[in-house]
């Protein structure tokens, strides 16, 4: 079952078409990871799934209804989205920014509730930013800032969560922490998650459903162990590699083949 679907989705900026006739069904209660080379249209697709970009053709459906026809606030109670490069207002504090994730659940006369309090506290603790609550977002490191944004998206408490490269800027332990967090949200709370990731091995490890894109098209999709092969990596990224089972999880592990300079003898 898929609450969120793209049907013959065509996406364009001005008159430059980036994604053409894309069909995609996001499986409910699963972690879907989108991979692909730079500029292949991953962010563009994610933005369209989260109604940030109006389709030039086709439609995105949420529970069978066209996204473009739903009130944006209602969508915001179902779909949370973290853009690739969000910008915080100058001088905003961490707690203030995270609590803005509650926006879709609030009204002019209901600016704060116990529910808001709980969701914000919870989101900040899960992302390990509670200790930064009073700090200004401007004055954080890239990784801390990234976790604050993730906290904001979590505070929104939506069934569907779309995250665009949530692990950039993070050190390896925080990368794993964020991905584990995403997986826990998915396993324990049944959240549907869509991630854009660049690290193929992380993608293969955390995805239930992997979508490989190239030049605005889906090249392959399915469980990582079925689709991640040396051919796919060559086809999508133009990289020769060896795919072996991950020693820890058994998921496919992509090891780039032919190290630098190995294919041709050193000229003297």
């Amino acid at each position, binding site marked *: 079952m898929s609450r969120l679907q793209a049907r013959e989705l065509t996406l364009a900026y001005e008159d430059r078409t980036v994604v053409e006739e894309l069909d995609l069904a996001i499986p409910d209660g699963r972690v879907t990871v989108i991979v692909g080379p730079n500029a292949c249209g991953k962010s563009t697709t994610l*933005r369209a799934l*989260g*109604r*940030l970009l109006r389709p030039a053709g086709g439609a995105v459906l949420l529970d069978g209804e066209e996204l473009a026809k739903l009130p*944006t*606030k*209602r*969508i*915001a*109670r179902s*779909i*949370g*989205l*973290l*853009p690739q490069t*969000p*910008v*915080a*207002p*100058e*001088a*905003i*504090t961490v*707690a*203030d*920014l*995270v*609590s*803005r*994730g509650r*926006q*879709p659940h609030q009204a*002019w*006369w*209901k*600016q*704060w*509730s116990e529910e*808001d*309090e709980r969701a*914000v*506290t919870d989101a900040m603790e899960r992302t390990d930013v509670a200790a930064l*609550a*009073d700090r200004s977002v401007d004055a954080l490191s890239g990784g801390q800032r990234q976790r604050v944004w993730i906290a904001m998206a979590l505070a*929104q408490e939506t069934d569907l969560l779309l995250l665009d490269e949530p692990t950039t800027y993070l050190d390896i332990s925080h990368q794993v922490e964020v991905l584990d967090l995403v997986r826990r949200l998915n396993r324990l709370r049944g959240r549907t998650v869509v991630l854009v990731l660049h690290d193929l091995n992380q993608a293969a490890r955390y995805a239930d459903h992997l979508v490989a894109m190239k030049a605005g098209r889906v090249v392959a999709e399915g469980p990582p162990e079925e689709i991640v092969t040396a051919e796919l990596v060559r086809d999508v990224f133009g990289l020769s590699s060896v795919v072996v089972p991950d020693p820890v999880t058994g998921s496919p592990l992509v090891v780039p083949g032919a190290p630098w300079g190995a294919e041709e003898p050193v000229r003297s």
Partner: protein
Amino acid sequence: MTTVNVRPAGHGLVRAGRGSFLVHRRSALVAGGLLLLLAAACVAYLCVGEKSVAPGEVLRILLGEPSPSAFVVEELREPRLVVALAVGAAFGIAGGLIQTVARNPLASPDIIGISQGAGAVTVAAMTFGLTSYTVLPYVSIAGGILAAALVYAFAWRGGLHATRFVLIGIGIAIALRSLITLFMTKGDYLVAQQAQIWMTGSLNGRGWDESAPIRWTLLLLLPAVLWAARAQRTVSLDDDTATALGVRLGAVRLGLVAVGVVLASVATGVAGPVDFVALLAPQIARRMTRTAQIPLLCSALTGAVIVVVADLLGRRLFSPVELPVGVLTAAVGAPYLIWLIVRSRAVGGKT
């Protein structure tokens, strides 16, 4: 009504019936301080003049006791004080809203063409013989709104891009300014002089009748301003994030700009474009409250303090010659504007 401590640091929660409202504590304190300052400035405004009246006497007159100075205080100074208050508050709010939407501390009604629009139409009307201060406000309101609509239409391309909005505003402001110059040189000498004084921003000769449009506008727009104070929060995030949080950006921005433009146009209509108040007040207020968005109430109070104090100084500094209030605000505002630009260069022009 109870208050509880909650998460967003520095905020208090006020519950009233089923509603719950977040109050930024520091902003509340700053607003209190500004109110006291404003009250003091108002008393001083009523005391000082050609004929000095003691503060105690002023307070007694305000409470309705008869006094020989009652005429000077109530008939001469009070109406003009009310104009100063209303115009300052209106510019403070308008500047805050326009800066929020433009995401730029340099944007304000007198920079993006609203004041010039009001000015061009007003000066044109003056050259055609319309000189009544009770009619002119309506003419200039129309001009301001027209100019803003023009800026909005040109800046709109499937969405409102903040930088384009400011740049087009500046362009239109320049075009309109040359139109003003044209009308002034075409008109006869007396008209040009009156227009010149109006263009600097002056409260001279403004009484109850002249201030009626601005008083009514402030009153009628109060609900909209209350809405705006909250809506501002959401548009201060970037477009994608705000939309993802369920904000109807296009509509909210249009609403905020509309409120700002109406307030700025009406204030300009009443007092002329009192330069820099709309630019200064929101930034000063925000530096005091240290909030992530411009605090509208504090911005309104700051604007009122600036105009009241500037007009007080303008009346007395070189008496018996009176300086238009706009001259004083410009004298303070211009250096501040330069400082803002220099400073924003230093941090990499972040907007």
